[in-house]
């Protein structure tokens, strides 16, 4: 075991895709080679993450793996990575979804090498975010995710791609730049309090701050994370970005990027500013509830299938934030589980919309219809993941949602009850999507190819995971137990408002 933990797995995890990305950039004209290289690297990363998950599936308190090296000592910045049960789950999700993203992008024809290089760069950034424990390192990865996504949307996106790409970039940067200032502020306060200059999470925790200062710093962190989540009212970048992004971009955006916001709150926002965080929980709950309904209502009216799924993400992330706000074991575990769930289902839905778009060359619901008769297998999976998304019991989203709802109801019955009403609207917009796409009279060309083996394999695996998480999520909840329990102790009085 000691030999196992002496290998810098976490660094390997980050630098493997980074190296792959650089190699792809160098070989960018050899498109076929880049494709396979990306597949090989993302496979490698996935195998690594799966191996880590298998090794640490029992979870445990504290860091399962930890790396700490000097980096910019003069500024107090260190290279610290750490893995606990919470990041373990998200790292696994990242490894898996990036593989999915590579597979659904197999047909990208323009600038293929560049595309896959960006995907791998993205993977490095995302994994870095989930592993970094030094705030500056975290910030670095946080921004590093931004650039590849900007290109993915801007180069391979649809009609309004440039507007969407710039909007995405500016929105997220607006939050994160203020967070950078807050990080620096925290660092200086720590130094002023007599500590050695440091940006390490463990050193900056437990700092005595005046309430107003804590509130301001927390607000900066909160803004950065809530923009990423995204929570109403800072969510409007998401529909544009998701809609305009290429399929892989949407999968990653919905499946992973949104999770970094919640992860950031759990890993940094709450532990660094416990008092302010505890005070903010009811407001978070309020915004989450507004988001659940607001986004669901808007989703119901969307004419564009992809935009509808995008808005559904906002609603689902509302549930996740509600779970955080409820702040008890069940709800927070549910939130983290729900992040994984949402990543799988929404990722699959985006992949499916992408497959439909490849065949129909439209994503408008009123221009589609009757797909079941033409491409029954694709339609089956579309229906399946739609059902998962609308929270049908037995499928994954329900497992997460019910944990969140149970927890939320315990904290505040009104939250739980109100959020439950949201499922009607979830059904309303998802069924409208299914109705418009699958049912009705067939339109367009008479014959479309049904799923290729590559597409089918991706969807089957996703579907099996959806079932697994829906029926027996215990293996995925096990590593969460202790980290979440530790986390709950962070806020004063358990955080119950």
């Amino acid at each position, binding site marked *: 075991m000691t030999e196992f933990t002496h290998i810098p797995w976490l660094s390997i995890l980050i630098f493997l895709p980074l190296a792959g990305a650089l190699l792809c950039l160098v070989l960018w004209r050899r498109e076929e080679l880049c494709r396979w290289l990306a597949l090989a690297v993302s496979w490698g990363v996935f195998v690594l993450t799966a191996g880590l998950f298998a090794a640490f599936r029992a979870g445990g308190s504290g860091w399962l793996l930890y790396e700490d090296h000097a980096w910019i000592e003069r500024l107090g910045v260190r290279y610290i990575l750490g893995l606990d049960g919470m990041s373990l789950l998200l790292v696994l999700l990242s490894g898996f979804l990036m593989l999915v993203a590579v597979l659904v992008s197999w047909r990208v024809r323009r600038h293929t090498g560049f595309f896959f290089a960006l995907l791998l760069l993205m993977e490095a950034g995302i994994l870095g975010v989930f592993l970094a424990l030094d705030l500056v390192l975290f910030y670095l990865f946080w921004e590093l995710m931004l650039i590849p996504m900007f290109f993915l949307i801007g180069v391979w996106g649809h009609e309004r791609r440039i507007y969407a790409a710039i909007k995405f970039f500016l929105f997220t940067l607006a939050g994160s730049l203020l967070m950078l200032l807050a990080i620096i502020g925290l660092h200086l306060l720590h130094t002023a309090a007599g500590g050695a200059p440091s940006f390490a999470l463990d050193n900056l925790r437990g700092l005595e701050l005046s309430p107003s200062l804590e509130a301001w710093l927390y607000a900066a962190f909160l803004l950065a994370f809530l923009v990423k989540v995204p929570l109403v009212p800072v969510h409007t970048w998401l529909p544009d970005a998701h809609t305009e992004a290429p399929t892989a971009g949407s999968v990653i955006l919905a499946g992973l990027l949104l999770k970094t916001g919640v992860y950031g709150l759990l890993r940094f926002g709450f532990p660094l500013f416990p008092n302010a965080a505890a005070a903010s929980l009811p407001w978070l709950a309020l915004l989450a509830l507004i988001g659940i309904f607001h986004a669901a209502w808007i989703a119901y*009216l969307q004419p564009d299938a992809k935009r509808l799924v995008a808005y559904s993400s906002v609603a689902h992330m509302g549930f996740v934030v509600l779970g955080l706000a409820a702040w008890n074991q069940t709800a927070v*575990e549910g939130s983290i589980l729900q992040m994984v769930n949402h990543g799988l289902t929404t990722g699959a839905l985006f992949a499916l919309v992408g497959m439909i778009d490849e065949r129909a060359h439209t994503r408008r619901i009123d221009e589609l219809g009757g797909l079941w008769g033409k491409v029954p297998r694709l339609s089956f999976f579309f229906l399946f993941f739609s059902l998962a998304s609308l929270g049908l019991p037995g499928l994954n989203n329900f497992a997460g949602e019910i944990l969140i709802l149970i927890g939320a109801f315990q904290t505040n019955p009104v939250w739980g009850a109100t959020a439950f009403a949201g499922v009607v609207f979830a059904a309303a917009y998802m069924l409208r999507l299914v*109705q418009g796409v699958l049912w009705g009279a067939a339109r367009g060309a008479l014959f479309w190819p049904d799923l290729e083996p590559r597409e089918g394999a991706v969807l089957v695996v996703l579907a099996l995971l959806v079932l697994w998480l829906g029926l027996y999520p215990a293996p995925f909840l096990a590593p969460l137990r202790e980290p979440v329990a530790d986390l709950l102790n962070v806020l004063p009085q358990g955080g119950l408002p």
Partner: protein
Amino acid sequence: MSAGLLFLILAFPLLGALGNLLLGELLLRRVRAAVAVAAVAASALTCLLLWPLAAGEGTRATLFTWLESGTFQVSVDILFDPLSASMTLMVTLVSTLIHLYAAGYMEDEVDTTRFFVLLNLFVFAMLCIVLADNLLLLFLGWEGVGFCSYALIGFWYAEEKNAAAGRKAFLVTRVGDVFFGIALLWLFALCGTLSISAINAQASLLGSGTLLALTLLLLGGACGKSAQLPLMTWLPDAMAGPTPVSALIHAATMVTAGVYLLCRLFPLVSLSPTGMMAIAAVGALSALYAASCALAQREIKRVLAFSTMSQVGFMMLAVGAGAVSAAMFHLFTHAFFKALLFMAAGCVIHLTGGENDITRMGGLRKQSPFVFWLFLAGALCLAGAPLTGGFFSKDEILLADFARATLFYRGIWLLGTCTALLTAIYTFRLVYMVFAGEPRSHFHGHALPGPMRWTLPPLALLALGGGLLNLPPLYGGKEHLHQFLGPLAGTRIHASHAVEWALAVLAVALFFLGWALVHWRHRRAAPEPVGALPAFLLSGWRADRLVERGILRPFQVLAGWCWQWGDGRLIDGTLEGAGRLCLSGGERLRRLATGRLSTYLTALAWGLVVMLGYFAWRIL
């Protein structure tokens, strides 16, 4: 025989569904159907074989832990007690017959794989509801039947209308699910468990206000699935699906789920008298409403749909009166005769080449006496002809109501009795219009396939003889069902024999009155009445329009407002405005750089003036 085998009851339909899902396309059409039928039949057989386990307290089996987090722990628990066992037997038996019938009915359809997968899944979901000892598992089945009904009602998806009807069913029932769901969350918060037995055991510790609220929430859930007021609008539209599906929804699965839920949680529900009154009131009003609507319907299946709503209203009424055994009794007899009626109606539609409108039918008795007699058997049960199953069960419900000698329950009883009259009238109207007289139009009918024929007589026997299940002592019976249910049977009915006789006589009188009225009106083919009242009844008291105007349209407006105004103008507008402000500000500032040296030099001088001014201020 051990409790470990109980899961097989659930597993067979699920396996059937999975098998057809994975391999269905590779199998012959007949084999597909055979797999589906065999799966349900196996389930029924298992239920029969394991019957002894149900005796007394029943048997409990835990399959695996589903969810566990913090204090929240849910496992997949099966409870096989008299209530669930009898319900299981009914569901599997009737479903087996319906599956068989469907094998014939769907002979010429394409895509029967999907059909049989969903049909099996439907039964599986219903069995989950029935056998669950855990509210979350029950909820799984609850939502599962919602989905299956959605997919089956919209089976012929190519027509937008059918798919829309399916969606309506899912959405409306999901509104009810929310109430149930909230009750579930609340019960967990109160009891710390979702086990039904544990909750029932702890129910007496809860406060009366809480109990009332919980009862109302559960009633809301039941209303959704059982199509009771005010969540009833989906049921008439649900006729868009193939006839076996209608039979399944109305007889064996789905609509009875709500009643079953209330029976299952009766120990909790019964603790709130006000809640019980609400249940009874909803049941009675729904029964009356649906019966009145059935009077004016023109489609054979819609008449039957409204009759289901009405009959389920009776069951609710029974639960509201505390008579669980009566409710279950009626549930069973209704399942038999309604399945029979739907399947016979399917034969009628088959014979008339897909015609659904009864005003264009007539004279079918001569064309197919077989169908006529079987349909008549079902109709007699529905109308409450003496000595048929429906007669006894309905009678028992009305008696239970009458026996609760309060003004409220007497009122309810009066409503129920009026409904019974209306039932006889619309049933005979249906029979007369379809079978009596001469054909009103010419049809190219199809021959009836074998399975569609031989599944009817057994059902007819069950329907007519259903009364034996729970024959009251008055007629020399032993009330088998009541005895079997034991402590689950609800409140005992205390009524004198005189009252019982009087009510029975009244029921018989009403039956004949109804028949006579219809006979007088429909002796000869008469034109359908037109006017405001028939139109009003035909449209189901304009409930759909009310929902459309009162809920859907305001919702659309609100959603549009959120989208265009909230996201569009308020958030994006503000941000884009800020962006534009930056851009236009930049343009203005850029204009300062005129390109002329004199401007640049002047700016230099102004800068100097400012600096000098500042230093001068510093010095002074």
